[in-house]
C-alpha cells in the first residue's frame, strides 16, 4: 500500500514540475524578442496558420518586404482561433504603443471589426485581406484603416473553367470538386463555374461534389466518381489546387494521370509542377507573396505619410487584386521567377494590381 502511495505521489510531483516548467516556458515565449527603437514602426502579419503552403508563402513575402524596407517584422498565427488572433493583435498594439502596421487575414469575417477598431484606437495602420463584414468600410476609419483586399472568386472560378473547356475541346462531361460549403471563396468560385457552364452548353457537369478543400478527401471522392461516370469524365474542375492534386493522384492510381486535365486555384507548388508536366491544364493564384508584402507596404506608406488614405479613390480602399494565371504558356517562366528563386517585386508599385472596387 505504501508503495502505491509513493507512486501516486511521485506522479503528482512530476505533474506539478511539468506545470511549473510549462509556465516558465510560456513566460519565456511571451518576452519581447528585441527591444524596439521607438521611432520605426513594427510590421505585423496576422495569419491563420503556418501549416498550409499558402500562408507559408504569405509570410515569406512579408519578410521579403520587411527586409527591403529595413523594418522589424513579427508574424502572429491565430491557429484558426479568432479569440487568439484578436488577443495577439491587441497584445502587439500594447507592446508597440500603437506604433505598428498590421496586415491581417482575419480568421473569420466578424473578426475584422474588433481588429480594425483596436488598431484605430491605438493609432496603428491596418490592411485587411479576404474577410470583413459587408458594413465595415476603410473610409469610416480614416486614416488608420487603409485598405481591404480581396480576390474575385467568381472570375477565378470562371477563368479556370474556360481554360478547362478549351483543353477538352469545348464538349464533354466534367466533374467539379467544391470547397467547404459555407465559405465565401467556395460559393464564389462555384458561381464562376456555373457562369462558364451557362456559356458553354456542350459541356455537361456530371456531378458537383464537396471535398472540403482537402486533397485526402478529393482522393477518395475521385475514385468514387470514376466508378460512377468512368470514361465520361473528360476534365476535372477543382475549387483549389490541393483538392485538384488529390484528384490527380486518384487518376494516377488508375493510369489516367495526364489524360484527364485538371484545373485548380491557388498556384501551390504541386499544381505548378503538374502544369509543367501537363497533368494540370492551369491554376490561378492570388499570389500570397504579393499579398504578404504589399499589404504591409500599403499600410506602411500610409503610416509614413507617402499618401493620405482619406484622399485615395474608393478602388484603392476596397479592391480586388489581380490574380495570376499559370497555364501551359507561361509556366516555365513562372517556375523560374517564383519557384526556383524568390520573386522580385516592385514594392513601390502599390496599386499596380488593382482590378476594381469590390462589388457591394
Amino acid at each position: 500500500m505504501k508503495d502505491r502511495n509513493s507512486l501516486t505521489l511521485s506522479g503528482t510531483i512530476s505533474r506539478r514540475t511539468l506545470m511549473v516548467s510549462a509556465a516558465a516556458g510560456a513566460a519565456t515565449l511571451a518576452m519581447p524578442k528585441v527591444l524596439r527603437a521607438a521611432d520605426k514602426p513594427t510590421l505585423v502579419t496576422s495569419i491563420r496558420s503556418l501549416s498550409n503552403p499558402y500562408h507559408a508563402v504569405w509570410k515569406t513575402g512579408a519578410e521579403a518586404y520587411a527586409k527591403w524596407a529595413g523594418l522589424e517584422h513579427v508574424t502572429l498565427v491565430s491557429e484558426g482561433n479568432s479569440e487568439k488572433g484578436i488577443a495577439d493583435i491587441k497584445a502587439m498594439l500594447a507592446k508597440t504603443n500603437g506604433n505598428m502596421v498590421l496586415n491581417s487575414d482575419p480568421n473569420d469575417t466578424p473578426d475584422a471589426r474588433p481588429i480594425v477598431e483596436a488598431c484605430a484606437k491605438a493609432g496603428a495602420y491596418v490592411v485587411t485581406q479576404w474577410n470583413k463584414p459587408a458594413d465595415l468600410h476603410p473610409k469610416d476609419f480614416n486614416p488608420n484603416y487603409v485598405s481591404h483586399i480581396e480576390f474575385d472568386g467568381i472570375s477565378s472560378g470562371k477563368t479556370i473553367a474556360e481554360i478547362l473547356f478549351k483543353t477538352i475541346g469545348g464538349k464533354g462531361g466534367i466533374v467539379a470538386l467544391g470547397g467547404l460549403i459555407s465559405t465565401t471563396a467556395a460559393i464564389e468560385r462555384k458561381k464562376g463555374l456555373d457562369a462558364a457552364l451557362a456559356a458553354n452548353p456542350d459541356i455537361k457537369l456530371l456531378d458537383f461534389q464537396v471535398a472540403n478543400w482537402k486533397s485526402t478527401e478529393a482522393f477518395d471522392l475521385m475514385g468514387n466518381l470514376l466508378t460512377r461516370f468512368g470514361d465520361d469524365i473528360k476534365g476535372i474542375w477543382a475549387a483549389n489546387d490541393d483538392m485538384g492534386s488529390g484528384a490527380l493522384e486518384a487518376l494516377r492510381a488508375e493510369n489516367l494521370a495526364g489524360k484527364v486535365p485538371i484545373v485548380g486555384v491557388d498556384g501551390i507548388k504541386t499544381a505548378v509542377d503538374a502544369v509543367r508536366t501537363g497533368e494540370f491544364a492551369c491554376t490561378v493564384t492570388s499570389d500570397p507573396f504579393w499579398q504578404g508584402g504589399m499589404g504591409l507596404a500599403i499600410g506602411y506608406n500610409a503610416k509614413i505619410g507617402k499618401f493620405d488614405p482619406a484622399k485615395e479613390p474608393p478602388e484603392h480602399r476596397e479592391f480586388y487584386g489581380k490574380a495570376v494565371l499559370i497555364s501551359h504558356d507561361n509556366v516555365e517562366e513562372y517556375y523560374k521567377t517564383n519557384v526556383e528563386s524568390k520573386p522580385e517585386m516592385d514594392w513601390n508599385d502599390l496599386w499596380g494590381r488593382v482590378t476594381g472596387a469590390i462589388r457591394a
Partner: protein
Amino acid sequence: MTIDTEPLKSVSDIERTTLMTFIPGRIAVMFGGRRWRGLAPLAVLVVLCVLITIANPNFIELRNLVRLANSAAVPLTLAMGLTFIILMGSIDLSVEGTLSVAAMVVVLLAANDSNGNDYGWWAVLAAVVAGTVMGLISGLVQTMLRIPSFMATLGMWFIGLGLSVYMLGGSAIRLNDASIRDLALYRFLGLPLAVWVAVGAFALAAIIQYHTRLGRHILAIGGDEDVTKLSGVNVTRVRIAAFALAGFFFGIAGVLAAAQLGQSHAVIGDGRLFAAVTAVVVGGTALTGGEGGVVNTLIGVLIVTVLANGMILLGISPYIQQTVQGLMIIAAVALSLDRVRLKIVK
C-alpha cells in the same frame, strides 16, 4: 386500516422499465435477438451493398471493388491500432498527429523535392519507428504521469502536428521515391500494394488480439481493470505496449497515406481521427471497452467506406451527405449493441 404500498410501488417500477425497454426489445427480437446481435454490423454491410447494387449496378464492378479496397486501406490500418486502445476503454486522439509525423518522416528521408535525402525503404522503417515511439510516449505519459488517455493523447496530437508543421515548413513536399510510390501505384493480383499492406495489418492485429497474451490482457483491462490487476497482470506494461502498438499501426497508415497522395503536408491527417473512431464504433466495439475486436472494426471500416462510395454512386447531393452519414452511424450503433442490457446510458 393501513395499506401496504410497497409491493404496488415496485410493480409500477417494473412496468416503467418494461415500457422503456419495450421498443429496443422489439427491434432486438426482429433481428433475431441477442444471439445474432454480434452479426448486426455485418447485416448492415450486406444490406447496404445490396441496396446500392440495386440502385447502381456499377457498384459490384471489379473496378469499383478495387477502388473500395484502396480507399479502405488507410482507414483500416489506422482503425486496427485504435481498436486496441478502445478495447481497453481508453481513447487515442493522437491519430492525426502520429500519422502526420510518420508521413513527414517518410517524405523527408526518402527522395523528395525539398532536400537531398534518398534513404529509400529505410525511410519507411524510420516512419514506422517514429509512429511507434509517438505511441510509446503517449503510453508512458498516461501511466507514469497518470494523465487520462484523452488528455495525454490530445497533447501528443498537437505535439505531432506541431512537429510536422515545423519540419515541413508549412508547405506540401512531394514524394519522389518511385518504389515507395509503388505502394499505391503497383498492383499485385489486381490490388494496389497498399491494400495488401492493410490486409497484412489486419492479419497481424487479429493474431495479436486472438492469439497473444497482450491481446487478452487488453481485452481484460477493458472489461474490468481492477480485476485484471488483482489477477496479477502488469496493467501499466500492457497499457504502454497497447499505445506503442497503436502508434505502430498509425505509422504504417502514415506511410500509406503519403504514398497514395504522393506528398506530405502537416494536415495530411485531417479528419482521419473521426473517421477511424466512427469505423471502430460502427463495427460494434464499445467505447466503454472490453467488447468487440479487430474483426468488428474491419466490418466497420467497410461500412463507412461503402457508404461514402454509395452516396456518390447514388448521386446524393453533397449538401445532405453528412446527414445521411449521421443517420447511418446512429442506426448501426443502435443495432449492434444490446441496448436493453445497458443500465446506464451516459
